[in-house]
């Protein structure tokens, strides 16, 4: 008890400031300690978690990061695969669309649903008296078709597979439409071949002459066949199973 009291007294007495040189030195050292303590604590606060982590923790963190990176890389590869697939699908689709468009144009020209232009011939039949018969006209069209004409029109009527010619009261009737003279047949195809086919002896020109009318044929760099037919949906025919 005596010891305790004296210890407290000593503590109290030491709290009285005595400005001796040695007391000052002690104070400076304590200040240094406080300063260093705070600086160190704050530098630890600043330091990131990684800097203060133990080695085993660091290894675990590294491991986790590596696994994460692996997973992400796998995901990236998957996504890139998917992207490639989509792109190639896109390409295929685009090719399919292009092919379909091409096919549509081709079929449109053949079926007469699209206007067409290209080199070919124009046959003008000057028939003021209506002496040309449907048979002769049909012969001319057949001959042109045989010679490779790809698209044809007679005056403003497109000639297609189902086209028919008939003799009407005031001239020829094509597909139910009366056409007036002079008749003009525009045909797209190889102009040279078409003209030759028209002019062979006993051919179309001669047939027109036999009917008593003159027919003129001229090659053209660009023949425009702009008469079109409406698209007709077949009523009975169905597409057979696709091959």
């Amino acid at each position, binding site marked *: *008890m005596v*010891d*305790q009291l*004296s*210890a*407290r007294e*000593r*503590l109290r007495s*030491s*709290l*009285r*400031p*005595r*400005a*001796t040189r*040695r*007391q*000052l*030195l*002690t*104070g*400076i*050292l*304590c*200040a*240094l*300690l*406080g*300063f*260093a*303590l*705070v*600086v*160190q604590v*704050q*530098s630890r606060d600043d330091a990131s978690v990684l800097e203060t982590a133990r080695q085993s923790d660091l290894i675990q963190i590294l491991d986790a990061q590596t696994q994460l990176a692996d997973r992400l890389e796998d995901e990236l590869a998957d996504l890139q695969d998917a992207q490639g697939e989509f792109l190639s699908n896109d390409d295929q689709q685009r090719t399919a669309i292009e092919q379909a468009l091409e096919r549509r144009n081709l079929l449109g020209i053949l079926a007469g649903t699209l206007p067409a232009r290209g080199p070919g011939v124009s046959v003008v039949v000057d028939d003021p008296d209506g002496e040309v018969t449907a048979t002769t006209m049909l012969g001319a069209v057949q001959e042109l078709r045989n010679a490779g004409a790809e698209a044809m029109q007679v005056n403003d009527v497109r000639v297609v597979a189902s086209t028919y010619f008939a003799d009407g009261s005031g001239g020829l009737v094509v597909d139910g439409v009366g056409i007036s003279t002079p008749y003009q047949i525009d045909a797209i195809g190889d102009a040279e071949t078409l003209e030759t086919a028209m002019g062979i002896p006993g051919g179309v020109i001669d047939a027109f002459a036999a009917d008593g009318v003159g027919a003129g044929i001229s090659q053209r760099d660009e023949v425009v066949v702009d008469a079109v037919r409406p698209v007709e949906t077949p009523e009975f025919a169905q597409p057979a199973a696709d091959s």
Partner: protein
Amino acid sequence: MIAALGLLVGIGLGLLLQPAVPLWLQPYLPIAVVAALDAVFGGLRALLDGIFDDKVFVVSFLSNVVIAALVVFLGDQLGVGSQLTTGIVVVLGIRIFANAAAIRRHLLGA
């Protein structure tokens, strides 16, 4: 009294200035702080024992800090820096606890 004031002044300065620890000092500062803490506790105990001597305190404070830093430096050179740091912290920690126990006995009588 002056020592306690000095401690407060030092803490205040540190908070106020917030200096960055230079890189070369980084491994030694924590160990130096622990060593200084040990010296301060030792000094406090000596004070309560009635055998406090300013000169002894100053010398033990400085030598503690220097030796602790030196040992860690040596450990770094030998490649066992972190282990030696741990060892010094353990030793100084034990001493701090012993001093604290003595102080406690003096002040609380238990």
